[in-house]
């Protein structure tokens, strides 16, 4: 009897077949990057819970079967889920393919927003030092899948000293299909010296369907540049979402990340920030709100490589039903990174006795003159506070929502884009107990 064909072998076979036609196939450096990635996938496969970084997250459901490329679409898809119309550039992908009728790219002097395919065709040079370099396929199995087979995505390139007033929106919308499929969004954000921008990346789709999204985002900030990156994940609660994002922050530059995780049955977000120049800073904030049997894993790594770096991190989670969250926050301070100031906090609110959190700080400090602090909490709604609210006439359900919102507000209020802030707050208010399978204690 023939041995079962492994998922990775099928991806490998697909790569062999399609490599000559993938975007950037004519670029030797990219070809090499893709070869390395597929080799990595072929040799090591997908992770198991025996690997330390995947101990609490079984990615089996996302890798046991291969996910085909998205099926071709006939007819126009609805713009539902794409968010409200925004000023500024707005690039939408439907099932991983650009949707020009759902996109608008107003000219912004000194900045370009383009599909990655176009960028690789027309002017690949700025991509070479970044694409496949900041998120090494060797360290991220799902990024290896993305790197070997990605077909499109976005490049946002802001030139020296240019400040973009309006946020740039990148929307990845996956529509339900008869068969599960995958999308492999690839994003590169380049901000040259002194440039500033706000970028919102949303991954979204209708409630049903077991899609796989494996996304990779690479961010390079020049000296004194400033980027606010907002990521909102509201994909199908039956789907799988894997995201590896890495940022390299030069001297005096500032990177702020806001991650909102609401969707997917299984999600894993790896965010790595290298504070590579003196005085670089980053602020990482995250909110995950889970119910039913949702599982969300957030791994963050902040590498202080240079002196006087500052990092602030606050992740908060609200868990209902039998959901499970993993938070792993690594802070690495290299010997030369004196006067580092780092603060990491993870707070979790459990609404159900069956919800579960694994939270773990990992501090590796090799410099002596530093301030590094971390803290983690896991708690429940305070019964006395609930009673206090009820004793003032506020019904129990409303009292619970009010306290959940109060818990999350610190993170929600910090989201720099009003519509994201409002829809996130609204999701917290309206969907508690309303999502399918949203178990209550």
């Amino acid at each position: 009897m023939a041995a079962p064909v492994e998922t990775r072998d099928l991806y490998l076979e697909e790569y062999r077949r399609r490599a000559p036609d993938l975007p950037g196939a004519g670029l030797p450096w990219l070809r090499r990057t893709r070869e390395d990635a597929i080799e990595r996938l072929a040799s090591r496969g997908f992770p198991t819970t025996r690997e330390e970084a995947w101990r609490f997250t079984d990615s089996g459901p996302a890798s046991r079967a291969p996910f085909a490329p998205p099926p071709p679409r006939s007819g126009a898809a609805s713009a539902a889920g794409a968010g409200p119309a925004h000023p500024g550039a707005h690039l939408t992908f439907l099932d991983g393919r650009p949707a020009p009728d759902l996109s608008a790219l107003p000219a912004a002097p000194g900045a370009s927003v383009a599909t990655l395919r176009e960028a690789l065709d027309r002017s690949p040079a700025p991509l070479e030092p970044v694409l496949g370099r900041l998120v090494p396929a060797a360290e991220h199995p799902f990024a290896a899948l993305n790197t070997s087979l990605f077909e499109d995505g976005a490049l946002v390139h802001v030139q020296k000293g240019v400040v973009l007033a309006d946020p740039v929106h990148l929307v990845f919308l996956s529509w339900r299909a008869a068969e599960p499929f995958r999308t492999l969004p690839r994003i590169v954000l380049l901000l040259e010296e002194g440039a500033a921008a706000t970028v919102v990346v949303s991954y979204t789709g209708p409630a049903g369907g077991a899609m796989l999204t494996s996304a990779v985002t690479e961010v390079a900030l020049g000296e004194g540049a400033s980027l606010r990156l907002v990521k909102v994940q509201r994909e199908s609660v039956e789907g799988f979402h894997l995201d590896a994002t890495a940022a390299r922050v030069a001297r005096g530059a500032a990177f702020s990340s806001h991650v909102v995780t609401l969707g997917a049955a299984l999600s894993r977000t790896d965010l790595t920030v290298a504070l590579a120049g003196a005085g670089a800073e980053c602020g990482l904030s995250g909110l995950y709100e889970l119910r039913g049997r949702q599982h969300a894993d957030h791994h963050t790594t902040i590498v202080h490589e240079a002196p006087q770096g500052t990092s602030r991190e606050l992740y908060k989670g609200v868990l209902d039903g039998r959901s499970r969250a993993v938070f792993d926050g690594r802070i690495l301070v290299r010997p030369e990174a004196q006067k580092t100031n780092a603060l990491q906090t993870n707070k979790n609110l459990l609404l159900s006795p069956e919800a579960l959190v694994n939270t773990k700080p990992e501090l590796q400090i090799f410099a002596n003159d530093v301030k590094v602090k971390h803290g983690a909490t896991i708690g429940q709604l305070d019964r006395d506070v609930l009673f206090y609210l009820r004793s003032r006439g506020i019904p129990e359900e409303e009292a619970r929502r009010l306290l959940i919102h109060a818990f999350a507000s610190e993170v929600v209020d910090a989201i720099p884009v009003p519509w994201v802030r409002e829809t996130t707050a609204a999701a917290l208010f309206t969907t508690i107990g309303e999502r399918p399978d949203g178990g209550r204690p």
Partner: protein
Amino acid sequence: MVAPLLEIRDLQASAGERPVLRGLTLSVRAGEVHAIMGPNGSGKSTLAHVLAGREGTKVTGGTALYQGRDLLALAPEDRAREGVFLAFQYPVEIPGVSNVYFLKAALNAIRRHRGEPEMDAADFLVHVRERARLVQMSEALLQRPVNEGFSGGEKKRNEILQMAVLDPRLSILDETDSGLDIDALKVVADGINALRRPDRAMVLITHYQRLLSYVVPDRVHVLADGQLVRSGGKELALELEERGYGFLAGNGSGGAGPGVTGPEVTG
């Protein structure tokens, strides 16, 4: 004669596993102010909690009627919406929820229940500012998270502010005078007096005669070991202040010693 606003008969209740109230009878009419005094641990707060419906307290016998209805059958929020208010001995802090937001949510929950339209933010702010003046509560305290970092006295004033905003029929104030400086006590007492009305009743739980010299009660009761062991007029508070609770010892639980009137209220 009108029926009492609150009529408690032979109430028995436990806090946690511990039996605390052992047959307490009290009736309060609209327009009256009652004071309940008594030693630490005698069950005063437990009584307040039972009336407000706090979980962890359990009624094991007796009845409590409010406006003729079974108060104990109602959920805590319904009691509040029907006009019962408890000023807590130890108000809790609610990080992340501003005082005005909280008060507006509470008032609108009560207004919805009464079939009145909800107040919008602007109207509410006018209303709450006017009420805040009554207890000399600053704008800053209104905007801060509920009770978070408030001083002991500020928390107590905040309880009275909530009472003033929510317009209850029956208020139970559990040691709202404890921990107040002399000026703050005067402010709180003035606030309470301003809210006295013929259709409202108040039960003041206190250890001190001082509050009662500002807010003159119609009746004073002594709660000891889970029962009202003595009731009288406002002079009873003075007598207790002079002689302590010791002179009541030996009266037995609920027994009527010489000069002791029963807890039944006439009026």
